[in-house]
Each structure stands twice: as C-alpha cells, then as structure tokens.
C-alpha cells in the first residue's frame, strides 16, 4: 500500500481565498497542499474586475516591491447611467481616488492568480494542479482529508479549507448549506476582453496614459430592465466589458446572454469605444449575490469554507476578491491555532467565524442583507430611474430660450409619467433602508 499523502492543511481551490489561506498557513510553518482543478491556478477564474490594495498589502506588506502583474490602476471610477440611446456619467477622479498607491487595480485573473499562487508557493505551500476534489474523508464525523478524482487520490489533513468558488458543491456536501444556488440570488455575467492599442483606449476614454485606468458600473438600459449591472474596466491594452443579470430574470425573459452583451456593445455610447477592437477572450461566470441571506455555516469539524463558496460577495461595491483574501487569512490563522491546540473540533474552528465577525466581511454582508431582494423587487432602478436621469439632465442642459418653469414641469413629468411620485419617494426610502440595512 503506497504510504498516505499527509499534510497539516489541505486547501481546495487556488483562487484568491485558497492561495491566501495557503500562504498564511505555510508562513506559520504548516505543511500545506493546495488542490486546484485547473491546468494552473487562475485557469478557471474569471471576473470584471479590480483588486483592492488594502487586502493585497495585508498579506504581503512588500506587495508592490514584488512587481505584481497588475493592469491599469483605477484612477477614475463611478456609475454610467445608460438610457436607450444616451448616457449620464457620474464618475469621480482625483481627491480620495488619487492615493499612492491607489486603492484598486484592474487585473486579469489568469496571470494574477498564477502569480498570487507562486507567492504562496514561495512561503512553502505545495500546489497540486489538474486535480479535482470530489468528496471528503471522515473519521466518525470529523473531516480528516479529501478524495480526488485521480487514482490513489486521497489526501489526508486534519484541517480542510474549502475555497471552491461559486459552484459550492463540496460546501453543500459538507452540509454547511442545505440548498444549491438560489436563482434569484445568483447572477450570470458574460464578458468580452476587446484588445485596442493603449493610445486608442486613452484617447477614447480621456485617460492621459496607461498609468491611468477606469472601473465603471453601468446601470440602466444595459440589462434591459432585468436586475443586473454592466461593467467596463480598462486593462493596459484592452477593454473588459460585460454584463450580469440575475438567473431568475434570465429564465423569465429567455434572452440569450451573448445577445444581451452584444446589444450593450452596440449601444450608441459604447460602440465608439470598442470600434475596431479585436476579441481576445469571451467568457461567463456566476456571481453569488445572496450575501448574508445565502451565507453557509462557515465551519464544521475539520473544515472551513471561504470566498465565493461562502457567498462572500458585496455586489453593490464590486467587492469579492478582498473578502475572499480576508476570509482566507482568517481561516488559515484559525487552522494554525487549531494545530497549536491540536484541537480540530467544530468548536475550535468556530473561532474562524468569530474572527470574521470583526472584519468588514460579515459586517458588510449583514448590512446589505436586504439589497439583493430590494433589487429584484425594484427593477425600476434598472430602467426607469436611469432613463429619467438621462431625460432630466438632457432637458436641463437644452432648456435654452424656454421658460424654466415649463422646463422643470417637463422634467418632473418625465418622472411622474414613468413612476407615480409617491411610489418614487417610496423607492428612495426603500433604497436607503436596504443600504443602511434596517
């Protein structure tokens, strides 16, 4: 019998949460194995998207000295409100955004996640790619390792940190959650990475050079009234443009995701930005938007769960990777503590949840627990209000020579014939409550 494959900690998945957990645990001297199903870490990961400096520097204080493979820094960010044929831009630059280093960097996951995993390997973590974890090994209820789909594929470890991503089949198998993804609490995002010469991107978006970049949330016509958000990120030499809508809306309208994306790309305000660009990569990924309402139990005897698998995403603020990094770290520290005490019981690992409560992760998820329900019940924020905003500002800035009283009446009517006033006020209050979380 070949000898057992034994580690102190097994991490499932080499994404943001997994590689972070591995780095922290290895740094504390534990023997860590990271089992990744992709050809390489990053091969299966996909996002808009931007990474947040606070989380990256928390794991590696000398983060920027290590020359990380980042795309453009985010020096301009905000909302674009799309109407059927127009656009209102509400973006901010300079001021708070102008930190050194800036708070967010656009990134490409295949390259960054591989680099992030290499940093963990340098700390001593051992990466096993091209291997799928299919189940757990138990000893009277206690998780003592994982099963993989390779022959002689059992890997033993007293602590398993599950970072398997949004399709959390293993988390469900562990019994940490009693249902599969909710279609009203999960969004499908499709995206195109369109390459353009950097100078062209700078010219079209008003960026001085490749040391400046954009991260834009696009609201309104992009999702054709369905609860969802579009996005636009600038990598060094490409535009990363996509749109995500909740699965229940997709099911109801039976709109093909790639047609929705194409319509977004053909919008009069977007088409000129991507003209003559070359498609480098198309892709699709689910985003867990349930947050607090779909949060699984975070620990059990011998195992913890972190990242998308634990629906740690705050869609409104586009936060997911920093939550995953924070949770990965806390899970690792809990594992280190458990090894010191040689106590891998559920009680011992419950400290993971206590630690996480102190961080923004659980605090924010709790605060925004009403948000996804709010968005699906208030689709008007996705079509009526963006359209109204376009009309209102459009009229305001073309009211020359007309009596202004009549102009304001017309702006007012462009709201009321879309949405009765008392309802609009009600929407605003409901939005406020959902944001404050009362």
């Amino acid at each position, binding site marked *: 019998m*070949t000898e057992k*494959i034994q580690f102190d900690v097994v991490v499932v998945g080499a994404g943001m949460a997994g590689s972070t957990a591995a780095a922290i645990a290895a740094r504390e001297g534990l023997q860590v194995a990271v089992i990744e199903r992709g050809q390489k870490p990053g091969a299966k990961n996909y996002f808009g998207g931007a990474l947040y400096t606070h989380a990256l520097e928390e794991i590696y204080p000398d983060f920027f000295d290590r020359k990380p493979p980042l795309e453009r820094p985010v020096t301009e960010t905000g909302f674009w409100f799309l109407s059927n044929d127009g656009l209102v831009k509400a973006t901010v630059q300079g001021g708070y955004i102008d930190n050194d280093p800036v708070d967010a960097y656009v990134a490409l996951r295949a390259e960054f996640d591989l680099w992030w995993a290499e940093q963990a390997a340098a700390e001593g973590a*051992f*990466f*096993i790619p*091209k*291997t799928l974890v299919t189940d757990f090994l138990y000893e009277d209820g206690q998780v003592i390792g994982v099963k*993989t789909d*390779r*022959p*002689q*594929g*059992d*890997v033993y470890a007293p602590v398993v940190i599950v970072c398997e991503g949004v399709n959390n089949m293993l988390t469900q198998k562990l019994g940490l959650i009693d249902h599969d993804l909710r279609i009203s609490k999960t969004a499908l995002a499709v995206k195109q990475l369109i390459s353009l010469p950097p100078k062209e991107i700078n010219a079209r978006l008003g960026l001085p050079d490749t040391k400046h970049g954009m991260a834009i949330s696009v609201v309104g016509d992009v999702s054709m009234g369905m609860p969802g958000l579009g996005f636009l990120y600038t990598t060094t030499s490409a535009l990363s443009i996509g749109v995500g809508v909740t699965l229940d809306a997709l099911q109801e309208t039976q709109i093909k995701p790639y047609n929705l994306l194409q319509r977004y790309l053909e919008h009069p305000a977007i088409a000129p930005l991507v003209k003559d660009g*070359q498609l*480098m*990569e198309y892709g699709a990924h689910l985003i867990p938007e349930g947050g607090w309402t779909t949060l699984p139990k975070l620990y059990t005897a011998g195992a913890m769960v972190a990242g998308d698998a634990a629906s740690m995403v705050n869609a409104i603020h586009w936060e997911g990777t920093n939550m995953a990094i924070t949770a990965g770290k806390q899970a690792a520290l809990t594992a280190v503590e458990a090894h010191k005490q040689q106590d891998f019981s559920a009680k011992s690992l419950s400290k993971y949840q206590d630690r996480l409560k102190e961080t923004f992760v659980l605090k924010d998820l709790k605060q925004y627990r009403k948000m996804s329900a709010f968005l699906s019940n208030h689709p008007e924020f996705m079509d009526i209000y963006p359209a109204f905003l376009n009309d209102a500002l459009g009229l305001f800035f073309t009211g020359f020579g007309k009596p202004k009283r009549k102009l304001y009446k017309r702006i007012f009517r462009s709201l009321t014939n879309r949405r009765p006033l008392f309802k609009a006020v009600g929407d605003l209050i409901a939005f406020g409550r959902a944001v404050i979380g009362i």
Partner: protein
Amino acid sequence: MVHLLVSVKQVPDTTNIRIDPETGSLIRKGVPAILNPYDAHAVAAAATWKRKLGGKLTVITMGPAAAEEALQECVEMGADRAVLISDRKFAGSDTLATSYVLGEAIRKIHQEDPLDVIFFGKQAIDGDTAQVGPGAAVRLDMPLVTYVVEIQEINKEQGYALFVRKTESGREVIRTSLPAVITAEKSIAEIPYASLPDLITSLRYQPEFWTAHEPLAYDQAQIGLKGSPTWVAQSGTPEAHEPAETISVEEFGVQASVDRALKDMLADKSVASLWKEIK
C-alpha cells in the same frame, strides 16, 4: 528490461494563435504553450510499453527554459528521466540543426544505457514539417517507421519490433530490428489520467539541464542559424478571400438560380478540368 526514449516539443497552441497584423509575427502574450499533442500520445504509448515490459522511459526536449513544463507532463505520464536541452546558441535552428542536436543527445543516452525504441510525434503543430523524426533516424543510422498507429510487439530478447503504420492506401505492418526510430500518430495510445502519486512525483521532479557545451560539446557550426540551411526570408498573414456574390432564390426563382450557379461553377478552370473526368 527495455529502455525507451521520447523526443518531445513544447509548442504554442496553434488553435489560439493571434498574429500582429502589422508585423505578421506571432503575438506571444496570452498564447498558451502546450506539450505537442502528437508527442503526448507518443509518451503515453511509451509509458504503457515500459510498464508492460518493465524498464525505463527517458524524455528529452530542445527548447526554452519554459519547456520544463512539457517535461513535467511527461514525468506525470510515466517518464523516469527528463532532459531539457536549452541554450541561446540553438536559437534559429531549422530541422537539420534540430535533428543534429537531438540526434547527438540520443546517441549519448544510447551509449550510456542502450535504447530499444525512440519515439517522435508525427509532427509539431507549430511547424508541421514532420522532418525531425526521419532526420534523427538517419543521424543515428537506425531503421525508421513513420505514421505509426499501433505497436504490435516489442521483443528485446529476439531484437525485433512490429509496428503498424497508416498510408493513404492502407495499413502496413513493419518488422524492424532494434533499436528503431518511430514517429507516432495520435491513435497510438490514449492520454492516461495519472495517479496522484505520479502527479506529485512530477511536480517535485527537476529535469536535467543540458546546454550547447555541457555535458555534450556540440559542433557550433551545426547548431543555431549557422547550422541551418533554411531561414525565413519573409513572413505575413494570409490575405483574406473577398466575400462571394450571392444569388437569391427568392428573387430569381430556383430554376434560374441553379442554372446560373452551375454555369458559374463550370466557368472555374479547376472545376472545368474536373468536369471532363466526370462525364
């Protein structure tokens, strides 16, 4: 106990090629490098026979340092020893120089531990020349069997092997003395799904690193650009076909549309030359 060797190559994945329209050269960024598919099947076949007969499997590759990843995949499939031959001096080698570099490396390994069968993939999907296998066989003065779809027998004791090769007109069963050189089609073996211990071994395995001087002192005149009779005078992207003229059945009706289509078809000289044969 048999000693088998496979010569492999790491190639850019041509199904994902992107060409810079101005320079006509390959855009490297974002183009994944993979183990040449034909070589992967050759390694799978060699590993199967090594396990069946007992023995050793060596793999070698000539390429950049990153080619180490391709060797790792071979160890995962069952290779016991992997050698990376890498040196800036090899840059620009055409197939003649390449078969010299690989041929001498195989000769050295053969002298130290006699080989029985040497495998090459049918061709590399980036160059598609299919010349390096035959070239190495000539340099090693060993019998060559190309386009092998099946290995029937490797009999070291009686010093022969039986290979099945595929040609346009059918399948030939070839008997060769040993050692022999073969080039492999994909159907020679399926890619195995390695056990976890084999995968872990491959992840921890460090290939041997040979240069243009160590441990073999290559004749500098036969390697790199100096040793390559052929070089690329010019390269570019293929010009696009202009879009076709279309006839609408709705407009002209079926009979007239087909009549015009057949006339236009027969007006084409190569179809016309064919037409004589059909009648």
